[in-house]
């Protein structure tokens, strides 16, 4: 049985693709067979973040339309054996994704023996976002501690609770988790940024990870290597923790406290 995990947020630019890439890598590093699928038709970007943009021959829409087989479109990751990428198409046709087509591809991925299918949702609440979440078993809602992102996340939670196959069938619904990104403990401490607990309280959900704001995230996307692979990065360790929690481990949150500073820094703030 494959578990389908949608990474979604409503708002754009909060870190969905970064999170999809890192979670997919993290699961695969633990030996799971993982496919990560880009649902952002027309604005393909997961391939760049995964560093396989020059190896895209066929894409998701090609598979749906029968231009090629699923195996031809799956791009095998060069770093981790059990990780595969299915790129979005660059077509401008918004109707290229169909519910039936998506269902068929997901079923086929499961039949191929993938244990986890990570669906990278586009921003917004249009068709792409709807289809990315529709077949999901679990949802990782990526949120920045910022008003518009939190509000949009709540909107997405409403859709997860009503417009998904699990919600319609009434079998427990989609299991939802929050993942905070761009978290800045120093700004939280000075009252300029909402805390993990604030966001958790407003949205009423469990937090599966808190990724600190880090320059490593941009470096990772520059290089096409998901940030979780950067062994020296706090962001990578935060994503590793999130993956462990997805797999059922209980871990305390890290990187949510302000780092200790020396005497002078404390005296003079900053």
């Amino acid at each position, binding site marked *: 049985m494959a578990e389908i995990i949608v990474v979604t947020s409503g708002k754009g630019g909060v870190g969905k693709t970064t999170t999809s890439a890192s979670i997919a890598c993290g699961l695969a590093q633990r030996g799971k067979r993982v496919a990560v699928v880009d649902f952002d038709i027309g604005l393909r970007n997961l391939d760049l973040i995964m560093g396989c943009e020059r190896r895209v021959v066929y894409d998701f829409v090609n598979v749906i339309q029968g231009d090629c087989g699923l195996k031809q479109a799956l791009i095998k990751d060069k770093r981790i054996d059990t990780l595969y990428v299915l790129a979005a198409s660059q077509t401008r046709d918004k109707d290229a994704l169909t519910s039936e087509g998506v269902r068929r591809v997901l079923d086929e991925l499961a039949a191929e023996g993938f244990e986890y299918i990570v669906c990278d949702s586009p921003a917004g609440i249009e068709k792409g976002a709807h289809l990315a979440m529709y077949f999901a078993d679990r949802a990782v809602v990526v949120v920045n501690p910022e*008003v518009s992102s*939190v509000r949009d996340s*709540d909107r997405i939670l*409403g859709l997860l609770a009503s417009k998904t196959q699990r919600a319609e069938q009434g079998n427990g619904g989609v299991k939802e988790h929050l993942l905070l990104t761009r978290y800045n403990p120093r700004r939280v401490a*000075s009252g300029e940024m*909402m805390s993990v607990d*604030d966001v958790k309280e407003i949205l009423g959900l469990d937090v599966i990870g808190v990724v600190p704001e880090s320059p490593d995230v941009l470096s990772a996307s520059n290089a096409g290597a998901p940030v979780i692979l950067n062994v020296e990065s706090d962001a990578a360790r935060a994503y590793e923790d999130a993956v462990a929690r997805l797999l059922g481990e209980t871990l305390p949150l890290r990187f949510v406290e302000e780092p200790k500073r020396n005497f002078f*820094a404390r*005296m003079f*703030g900053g």
Partner: protein
Amino acid sequence: MGLLALFRKTSSTASVAKERLRIIVAQERSARGSPDYLPLLRRELLDVIRKYVNVDPSAVQVNLGHEDGHEVLELSVSLPEAHRGG
């Protein structure tokens, strides 16, 4: 927070954000399951009231609630000071 921070203005924008979100999220959640006609009803009511009294758009609240198995349409209009009792 450093010593110098004591001299800075200490009002927290994060708590303002949290409070605003708490209100708007609660409002949007309660609207989620409600019939589509409520926003239109509210707009038309506002137009009618405005024929007589110049009220603010936020002065008209329409809520659909449940009480003892009945659906209750609750309408609340706050009139501006000058019109009270007039």
